[in-house]
């Protein structure tokens, strides 16, 4: 009886291979058409490989826990003549291919010359090329000469290097080259406007922030937000001297939440997840011409009172421009209190070497539903947002962290 191959199917766009989770049939077992017989796992989900037709399992070549590319023959089904004939056309291409008969480089000019001499086929050596195994690592093949909107010619790049421009600076240019790429002419025309507008040198801080934000933005960032009742914090604050601002409460809450859930702030570099040993959190301070973010080390071990003292020191240092780069490096998270500007909510951008930033908005008197009283009661509410690098943290993890931060903020005795 003829055999029909069981082939690893195309399981989704850009899926190149799958791992066998389980094989749910035995040799000799009778199967129906479209029956799920093998379970495979891709990087997206667990899916099933179904039989191409009815018959008997004749051979299983796949092994559990092994990974096979799309198109691999996983086994064979002994099927009827009729079924086999139907599937013969769908069998994978023969694994060996003969060398091209056309001599490369013959049709040099694009307009085509159509003239190439006859080859004595017996004289041509054939080279065997295996087509099994497709493209390891997945992805669509990109032609070598492909240029698109992102292509920067050597000349454009040289000019950019000369002027210390980055890709972000080119965002304002609508390219006129092939695929809408930016040509040298487009760049020079664009730069000409620098001559007409009033130009001045950017300060070191401005340039530094620009560079940091550009680098940070190269990651996929997401933001989640919620509201927090600030009244408990405001009440607690009255009893303290010196008085910590809401941002310090938020910093402390974040620190404690991260102690409970350190994985949330883990950094992803390539395929490795890096965990910090200490909970160091930055606090954004507005300096003369930009934002600086000094890091408060061991924020989980620093009491709110000590945080307040530390903060006062940093503010005066910041005004005196004495905050060094060392004081701003490291750290696993940061807090930004844009509420001081009256801003209700925002999507701050994490520092480039950190995975998250907590943003605190301005507190406003808001009606809050009180279930016990079955009525709206006034409360001082603020919007609190958490922006994070979605490569290392998902909405669920970020959500749980934010929820815990809010819990702690609404119970300042725990801070």
């Amino acid at each position: 009886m003829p055999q029909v191959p069981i082939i690893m199917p195309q399981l989704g766009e850009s899926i190149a291979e799958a791992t066998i989770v389980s094989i749910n049939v035995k040799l000799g077992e009778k199967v129906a058409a479209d029956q799920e017989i093998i379970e495979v796992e891709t990087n997206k989900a667990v899916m099933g490989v179904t039989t191409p037709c009815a018959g008997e399992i004749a051979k299983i070549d796949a092994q559990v826990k092994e990974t096979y590319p799309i198109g691999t023959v996983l086994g064979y089904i002994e099927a009827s003549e009729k079924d086999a004939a139907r599937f013969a056309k769908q069998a994978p291409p023969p694994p060996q291919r003969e060398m091209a008969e056309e001599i490369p480089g013959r049709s040099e000019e694009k307009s085509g010359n159509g003239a190439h001499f006859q080859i004595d086929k017996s004289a041509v050596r054939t080279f065997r090329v295996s087509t099994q195994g497709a493209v390891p690592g997945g992805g669509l093949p990109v032609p070598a000469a492909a240029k698109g909107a992102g292509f920067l010619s050597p000349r454009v790049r040289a000019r950019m290097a000369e002027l210390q421009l980055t890709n972000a600076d080119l965002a304002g240019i609508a390219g006129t080259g092939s695929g809408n790429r930016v040509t040298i002419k487009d760049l020079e025309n664009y730069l000409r406007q620098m001559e007409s507008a009033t130009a001045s040198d950017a300060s070191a801080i401005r340039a530094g922030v620009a560079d940091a934000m550009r680098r940070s933005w190269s990651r996929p960032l997401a933001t989640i937000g919620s509201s927090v009742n600030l009244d408990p914090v405001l009440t607690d604050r009255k009893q303290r001297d010196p008085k910590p601002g809401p941002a310090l409460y938020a910093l402390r809450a974040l620190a404690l939440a991260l102690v409970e859930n350190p994985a949330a702030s883990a950094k992803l570099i390539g395929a490795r997840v890096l965990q910090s040993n200490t909970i160091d959190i930055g606090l954004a301070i507005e300096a003369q011409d930009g934002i600086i973010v000094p890091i408060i080390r061991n924020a989980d071990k620093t009491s709110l009172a000590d945080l307040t003292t530390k903060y006062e020191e940093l503010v005066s240092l910041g005004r005196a421009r004495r905050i060094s780069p060392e004081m701003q490096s490291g750290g696993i998270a940061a807090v930004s209190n844009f509420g001081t500007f009256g801003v209700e909510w925002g999507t701050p951008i994490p520092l480039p070497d950190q995975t998250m930033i907590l943003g605190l908005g301005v507190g406003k008197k808001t009606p809050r539903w009180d279930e016990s009283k079955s009525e709206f009661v006034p409360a001082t509410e603020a919007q609190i947002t958490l922006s994070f690098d979605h490569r290392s943290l998902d909405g669920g993890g970020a959500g749980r962290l934010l929820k815990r931060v809010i819990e702690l903020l609404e119970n300042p005795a725990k801070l």
Partner: protein
Amino acid sequence: MSITYLEAIREAQAKLLRDDKRVFIYGQDVGGTFGGAFKATKGLAKEFPGRVLNTPISEDAMVGTAIGAALEGMRPIVEMQFADFSSIALNQILNNAGTHYWRTNIPVPITVRLPSGGTKGSGPFHSQSMESLYAHYPGLIVMTPATVEDAYTMLIDAVAIDDPVVYCEHKYLYYHLKADNLPNDGMPVGKARIARSGRDLTIVSYSAMLHESLSAAEEIAKEGFEIEVVDLRTVKPLDTATVLASVARTGRLLAVGESFPWGGVTAEVIARVSTDGFHLLDAAPARVNAKDTPIPYHPNLWSTHRPSSKVIAAKARQLLRE
């Protein structure tokens, strides 16, 4: 007064024969009243008796004899009837003439004139452009004059140079190209000329293809692009500095030549610009050559085999839009 490219060559030879006793012309059918297959030596045998000599039909012997004469202090001009036949003298030109100075410290001041390039119906053995082949070998200077003025001054320079010079004169330009008068001196040998100023794209070319390139540039000027055209004049030595300066202005390079596409002058131009001027390029360099087949006889096939201003313009347009 109107003088053709061919007449300029004849005038240059007349001047050389007149001014320098060491000069003599050596080729097939150049002497007597015949004056050469293309009449490049018409009347010269009569004016300079014993100085314009007929040879047997043996390019090997022609160049070999000329090398011997040059070693004895003379300045022979060898006229090949067609560039294509010079392949028979390859060993003499490349190995004997080209290496002699390097091996013995004695230079070989011969000039070999090659009527190059195709005309309608001349076919595969009467149409070749061999400058790429000769430029490849060390020890030779390869000239490719594109204008009447250059044809005149560069031939005079060629004979004055102590090294072997392969002088590629283009048959198509012989009667088609005319000038008003002959100059007294020209640009130095080895320097390229900006034949047309531009700013959007550089075409580097030589010999007959210069005129096709200029024609293409005029065509494209109507579309709002200004093409700069460089006339190499000599392909060996190649004036890299001028080419780089031009690409520095325009950012785009199109090399045009009439020889076959594999390797050659256009490939050399692109290789040099890619290596030394990579950061000047706003788009990948391109080239236009003849097709990679023997040169056809049939006029229709021949006219599509060599680059024409249409083909050059099409390639330029594509490059401008990249």
